[in-house]
């Protein structure tokens, strides 16, 4: 059991800075997921916590101990790698026992712990197999087993599910989460899959280009994304973005020339005539009849994707060359080329500063 704290952690490879000062605090027993696009520095961050990569600046603390210069083996952590990194020449049993043997645990204790872990992970009948005689999901479990037998105070996961097929991934993500809850071990989990991130995390760190753009619970991040990047990254399909401008009276936002959307609240964060990016989630749009009382957008439909429970409409707003996607429940009768009207509750509106990309305003609760 431990607490993990990152203070302004920086990583440079030669001249190139890839992590630009990350602050993060993982509470004892918490499951924190780091999510971001490929190359944003997630693995690098995790590897610094593990001690596999030197820290170029800032401090990493495990409990009250500063571990920047502590060897990986002395940090009391375990890591599950993307490719599992099982020792191919050892049986499942030997793989799990390796770390305990090196740490000179008594034989009986090793056996006890390996058997317990095998029971927990349903690996009992595979203990004498080599990794290459196991399926992907079983290997994944062995990698987990190797991590838990040592009873470390922190688990680190680097995209542990990305080599599995979609169905197994869903199953394993539930298993990992249940296991972690049962053991109560502080965990840092890296993934580029936002669904994985949303479903597993107690708290989420959204990373972009070496910066932690936002840290918060999955729901907070979904409802109040702090920047265009976060808004676009979390949620599927992505949030729609349209260029707009705040009206002179600051009571509404104008899209293109003709559409004006009233803002539910007036705040000081926005100024008259300020250029903004308007964000609307596809699932917040619904079909409506054209009426002067309701804020609605016309959409020329290009493509209808029927998913079964939902339907995605892809199309363009006339005179705006922005692609808009709407996610409608059920199977509405819409044909390609048709013009439909989409309504949304102004409360679901997001406004972002056009230059900095920072969030200015949530319709739900003005910033």
């Amino acid at each position, binding site marked *: 059991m431990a607490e993990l704290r990152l203070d302004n952690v920086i990583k440079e490879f030669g001249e190139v800075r890839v992590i630009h000062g990350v602050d993060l605090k993982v509470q004892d027993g918490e499951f924190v997921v780091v999510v971001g696009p490929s190359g944003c520095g997630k693995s690098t961050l995790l590897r610094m916590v593990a001690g596999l990569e030197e820290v170029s600046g800032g401090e990493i603390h495990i409990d009250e101990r500063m571990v920047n210069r502590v*060897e990986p083996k002395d940090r009391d952590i375990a890591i599950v790698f993307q490719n599992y990194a099982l020792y*191919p*020449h050892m049986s499942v049993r030997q793989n799990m026992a390796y770390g305990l043997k090196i740490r000179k645990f008594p034989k009986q204790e090793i056996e006890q712990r390996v058997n317990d872990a095998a029971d927990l992970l349903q690996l009992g009948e595979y203990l004498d197999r080599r990794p290459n005689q196991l399926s992907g999901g079983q290997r994944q479990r062995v990698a987990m087993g190797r991590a838990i037998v040592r009873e470390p105070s922190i688990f680190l996961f680097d995209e542990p599910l990305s080599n599995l097929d979609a169905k197994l991934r869903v199953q394993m993500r539930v298993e990992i989460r249940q296991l972690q809850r049962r053991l109560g071990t502080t965990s840092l989990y890296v993934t580029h899959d936002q669904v994985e991130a949303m479903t597993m995390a107690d708290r989420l760190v959204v990373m972009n280009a070496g910066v932690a753009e936002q840290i918060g619970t999955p729901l907070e991040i979904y409802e109040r994304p702090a920047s265009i990047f976060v808004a676009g990254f979390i949620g599927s399909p992505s949030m729609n973005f349209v260029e707009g401008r705040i009206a002179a009276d600051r009571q509404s936002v104008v899209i293109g020339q003709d559409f004006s959307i009233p803002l539910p609240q007036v705040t000081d964060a926005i100024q008259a005539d300020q250029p903004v990016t308007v964000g609307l989630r596809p699932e917040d749009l619904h079909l409506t009849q054209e009426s002067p009382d309701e804020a609605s957008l016309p959409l020329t439909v290009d493509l209808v994707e029927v998913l079964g429970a939902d339907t995605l409409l892809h199309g363009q707003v006339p005179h705006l060359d922005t692609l808009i996607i709407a996610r409608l429940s059920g199977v509405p009768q819409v044909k390609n080329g048709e013009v439909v009207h989409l309504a949304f509750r102004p409360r679901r509106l997001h406004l972002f500063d056009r230059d900095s990309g920072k969030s200015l305003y949530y319709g739900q609760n003005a910033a």
Partner: protein
Amino acid sequence: MLKRVHFRRSYLPYLLVLPQIAVTLVFFIWPAAQALYQSLLIEDAFGLSYEFVWFENFIALFRDGNYLHSFRITIVFSAAVTFSAMALGLCFATMADRVIRGSSVYKTLLVWPYAVAPALAGALWAFMFDPTLGIISGFLKTVGYDWDHRLDGTDAMMLIIVAATWKQISYNFLFFLAGLQAIPKSLTEAAAIDGAGPFKRFWTIIFPLLSPTTFFLMVVNVVYAFFETFGIVHAVTAGGPSRATSILVYKVYRDGFVGLDLGGSAAQSVILMAIVISLTVFQFRYIEKKVQY
């Protein structure tokens, strides 16, 4: 089982392997058959007459103290060369695997000895160890060791071992380096997190995973020490002093071309051939069954 694709019958495949078969026939099968045939004959020194004697040449060999001596020193020689060339090759490869900056220079330098002809390699070492002029023998003299491989059999043996090892390190280095680089880095990282220090990691993870490479190289090195060191021995010691370095392959040449005992020499080459064939078969067997990681 691999799926086989069937093509229409055509002469093209045969045509394509024809050069290879021709080369094998002319340069291997034919001389080998000749050696086999000659090993069953006793010929007089002038080549005027011969007699078919079945296995008498072989029986004579194994009764000959000189031949048995040669066999013994060959085993010592090849064991020493194989072990030191592999140990050093592995050692250098492990270090090169860690080097990031300047690694290509380092690798290139390490590979050069392989491009040196055996006789030249031999000459090079013979110069350095020359009892009167050599720098290394000069150095040994200052630390109190009187080196003379022309008079001392042990010194001579050491010298050909050093020269033969030096030449083979590059080869082993290349294969070991390739083997090391094929081991995923995450394995050593996992072991480091599991608590293993560098030495423990090497012996419990890396070395076992290199075993296919190690085995392959062992066979190659033994074959090298047995057969390809002729040039080195010839240039450095010429088998001397008093047969101290007359390893099997050198003795074949001595007895056949200098001693003109063609039958005996042929019998010796047949035995050498049998050794190399069995080593090769052994290796193929193993590689087929090799554990696939």
